[in-house]
């Protein structure tokens, strides 16, 4: 298990079942039984998934007697969303710059003539 909290969250969310559970919990707190309902898996299997999410800090369980509803830690998820969005935005910004470069390139460019030495492009 990765040491830093963010990696733990990433790892926890690498599983599609756990992502589904998180999506369900975004709607509201739910019990283990309620979480297990959409799946053809045992309550034990769901509990195992929950343990991973809990260790990552994504969900918490109250000490509320029998029911013990599972609660999504929205702040942790927000951190993730911010992070992934930032990554996506970085890639998008890079490709928008590439869009500009492509627009500025003349059409029908001849391939580099073989007589010309390969450009090392070292602007010093």
């Amino acid at each position: 298990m990765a040491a830093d909290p963010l990696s733990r969250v990433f790892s926890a969310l690498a599983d599609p079942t756990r992502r589904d559970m998180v999506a369900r919990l975004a709607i509201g707190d739910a019990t283990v039984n309620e979480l297990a309902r959409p799946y053809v898996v045992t309550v034990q299997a769901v509990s195992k998934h929950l343990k991973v999410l809990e260790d990552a800090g994504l969900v918490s369980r109250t000490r509320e007697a029998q029911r013990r509803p599972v609660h999504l830690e929205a702040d942790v998820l927000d951190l993730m969303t911010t992070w992934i969005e930032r990554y996506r935005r970085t890639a998008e910004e890079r490709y928008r710059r590439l869009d500009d470069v492509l627009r500025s390139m003349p059409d029908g460019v001849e391939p580099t003539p073989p007589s010309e030495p390969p450009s090392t492009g070292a602007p010093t």
Partner: protein
Amino acid sequence: MTTSTHETRITADRDVPLVRIVREFDAPPEKVFRAHSDPALLVQWLGPRRVTMRVDHYDCRTGGSYRYIHASGGNEFGFHGSFHEVRPSELIVQTFTFEGMPDGVALERVRFEDIGGGRTRLTATSLVDSFEARDAFLASGMEGGVREGYERLDELLAG
């Protein structure tokens, strides 16, 4: 020319530590490839805006190698790698190492696909050493997972 914006899609593989980015461009594969292989063009878009990119060498052909430096606020970060397979307007397979972590290496593949109408679909994948390394820059399918969660929430609130 249309000024359509194209969505950058990011996905991660479940079975191997791989990140995939898919993006379409309003230019034919020949041009998009050139913008990747000609260092004079590459420096105009690859590095982050606040960073100055200096190319040490960039020999984009099968068996070639590259090295470039990002300079930002007095700090310099070097990156280098080898070109394992280069097929003009079609494919670039290369390694990528950040010199701050010289033992680490990513295997990158950029595919240029002609989708007609003078347009190109670019698929860039990056395969790293471990899931920890991959997850350090991306959660598998997080985008979809979270978005779907919020969409379901929106639907519920609207209903």
